[in-house]
């Protein structure tokens, strides 16, 4: 009887665990710069108690949540505050996504359309006149620098240049590259394939890859996100059927597929959850178990400032990046203070969020300027846009840093690759 009573009291996302301690409020980066957002406690567990009674209690300003998940990281009671907030946006929300939201959220569709015309698109999105129109008509802030589109999609490069040799490797992984690598920055994908191959591991793509869904969730397009998530889960199940892992280089895609699929979209991902592994962790574990060896270039020197993206912090994987980068002789790794950069994917592109986004990031930008590194190390692509737009420093994914520091030929020999 006792257990049954307790079981009946369990609600979604640990709502009933909240003891109203208010610590989340003290650490919310949005609240620090703006009062329009009701704050994590009010938007999350406090508001939810009322919303459960009537949807009239829904406050649309909860949309100003960045979904950085810092509230969840600091919560002493394990409440999934951000998940409560974003689930409420779907359950009680009355806002229909605008055309602007659709465009920002459709990272995959826009990528497919823009890539073939990359030089034109890049030139046009860089124009003052275009930014003026986007700002006035679409409410995409004119001060924002647009990510550049690449002329050749990563998938196209991979099929042509890399795929034919992957069959020669006994050990194989699948790669979920994400929209960013595919359309905006194929170099990261190329670095990943080069590095994995040198370590003696072959790389395949998933049979079907769709956008992980994060941009759609944040723009309120939950059904589309769910549709794509189902395709991704099915493709990953297929790839994992022979024990293979699915590696990622994007922290946010990883978090979305592992945690948001069940917590916000309500999808069962248990068949694939543990098989999705951030590349940096996979590489570290391989080296640790002695399954691969690595040789670094002589004379490599760099002073990097490490910014842990919010979602990396939430997943608790930064220890792998730190340990790996510290293996590089000649690498001086300086840790930046734990702060949100403020962009949170498409959040910072929206006109109504621009000022808030930059104000949130200020502490991080000041910290980077004070450290004055050769470059910033960071696993997240949208942090990269934000930091590169707001400071004078380049941002490199740890996978690319490794690819740069590793003596590829020597490493290949060590692994008989």
């Amino acid at each position, binding site marked *: 009887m006792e257990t049954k009573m307790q079981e009946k009291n369990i609600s979604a996302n640990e709502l009933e665990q909240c003891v109203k301690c208010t610590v989340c*409020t003290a650490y919310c980066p949005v609240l620090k710069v703006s009062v*329009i957002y009701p*704050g994590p406690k009010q938007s999350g567990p406090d508001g939810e108690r009322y919303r459960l009674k009537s949807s009239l209690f829904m406050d649309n300003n909860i949309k100003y949540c960045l979904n950085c998940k810092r509230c969840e990281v600091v919560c*002493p009671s394990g409440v999934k505050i951000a998940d409560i907030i974003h689930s409420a946006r779907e359950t009680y929300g009355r806002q229909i996504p605008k055309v602007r939201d659709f465009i920002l959220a459709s990272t995959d569709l826009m990528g497919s359309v823009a890539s073939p015309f990359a030089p034109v698109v890049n030139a046009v999105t860089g124009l003052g006149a275009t930014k003026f129109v986007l700002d006035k008509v679409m409410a995409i802030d004119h001060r924002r620098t647009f990510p550049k589109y690449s002329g050749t999609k990563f998938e196209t490069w991979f099929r042509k240049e890399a795929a034919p040799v992957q069959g020669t490797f006994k050990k194989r992984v699948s790669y979920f590259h994400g929209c960013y690598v595919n359309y905006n920055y194929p170099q990261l994908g190329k670095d990943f394939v080069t590095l994995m191959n040198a370590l003696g591991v072959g790389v395949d793509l998933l049979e079907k890859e769709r956008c992980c869904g994060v941009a759609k969730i944040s723009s309120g397009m939950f059904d589309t996100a769910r549709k794509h998530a189902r395709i991704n889960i099915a493709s990953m199940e297929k790839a994992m059927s022979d024990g293979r892992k699915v590696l990622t280089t994007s922290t946010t895609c990883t978090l979305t597929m592992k945690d948001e699929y069940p917590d916000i979209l309500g999808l069962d991902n248990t068949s694939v959850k543990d098989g999705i592994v951030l590349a940096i962790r996979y590489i570290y574990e391989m080296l640790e178990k002695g399954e691969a060896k690595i040789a670094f270039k002589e004379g490599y020197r760099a002073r990097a400032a490490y910014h842990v993206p919010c979602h990396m912090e939430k997943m608790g994987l930064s220890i792998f990046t730190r340990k790996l980068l510290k293996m590089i002789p000649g690498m001086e790794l300086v840790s930046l203070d734990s702060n949100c950069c403020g962009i949170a994917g498409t959040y910072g592109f929206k006109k109504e969020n621009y000022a808030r986004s930059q104000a949130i990031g200020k502490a991080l930008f000041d910290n980077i300027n004070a450290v004055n590194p050769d470059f910033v190390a960071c696993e997240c692509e949208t942090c990269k846009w934000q930091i590169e737009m707001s400071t004078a420093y380049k941002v490199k994914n740890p996978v690319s840093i490794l690819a740069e520091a590793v003596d590829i030929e020597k490493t290949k020999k060590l692994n008989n690759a």
Partner: protein
Amino acid sequence: MKFDTIIIGGGLSALTCGIKLAKAGRDCLIIASGESALSFNSGSFGLLSRLPDGTAVEEPLKAIEQLPSSHPYVKIGIDNTRRYAASAKEFFADCGISLRGTERNLWRYTSSGKMKRCWLAMEDTTAFVSREDKVGDKALIVTVKGFQDFFPGFVAESLEKKGISCRCESIELDELDMLRSNASEMRATNIALTMEKDKIRKSFVKEISRIRQDEDMLILPQIFGYEDTRALEDIRKAVGMPVTFISTLMPSVPGIRTQKMLKKAFEAAGGTLMMGDCVTGAVIEGGKIKSVLTSNLGSYGLEADNFVLATGSFFGKGLASDFTKIYEPVLGLDVDASEKRDEWYSSSFFDRQAFIGFGVKTDNDLHPSRDGEAISNLYAAGSVLSGAESLYEGSGAGVAIITAMYAADKILEG
């Protein structure tokens, strides 16, 4: 992945232990599932204010001799307790946290204006040598309009009993009034963040000068000093009369600032922090922990030579209960706790509560046991330990700091 020491927990005890080890050159990992009770600290640390028999304590380091042998202070040795207590001020000063205190307990105001004993006071806390001490005869008690976590009326009532006449005022500034549009989140920390701006603080001080009549002392809530103590010092200087700061409801500005400074000191000494992760179990072989597992890392074990359990009490989830038992949920360690549920608590909330004294059973070196078998490379520290009724005795911070220092030294002695 292997570390020299892994500390489970992220509060006062865990950070004290971690800083000490990291400064001695050990590769140290802290795994913390969320922020700790330090976020609710009222601006001071207690060592011992009352003995279990109810006797009030003036000199805590003398009084510890009268504690039972099951008390952590006695377990680790009275001389050790004294030595670590004496080193605390310097230890925190090295982390940028300035504390005041003597061999005798000091007196501080509670959030309702009552007086309580304390051992070390943070810069936000006005501490008095005697209970009868007062700063002035006429107090101006000032709060921010709309701030719901500070109660000038209660404070005035208590002070008037001491013969201090009081006048309560609230100040309204545009910048602070902005916060009111979001009343539910108008907390001490949010106000303190706004008060970091020199301009706003200046306007605030100007308002105080305007409303001041013939008062000779000022009382303010602890809403200054979010990042460091600069704003606090500035306010003290600027208002032109003695200021007494009084703690607010949570989250606490001095507590959160202290927590952040300790984390910084730990990372600066080379320590690694894993926030928001939760240890789910351990691999124990031959009476030693080999590795611990966490909810984020799944089956990937984190290894270390030594482990410290500083997970806190019930709020920190270091201890848990169900209908039939009190248990240690992380590693399933043996506990000192009554088996009879009706002995756990008194139904009157303000009574002394037995469950506060429950905790992990250890030997005198703070090694816990599981199923009666001691775990030789594990130490327990802080409020997860049994034997201290921290709330009744006023010993929470003292036990956290002193047992953490002891565990760190045991590990360093190897």
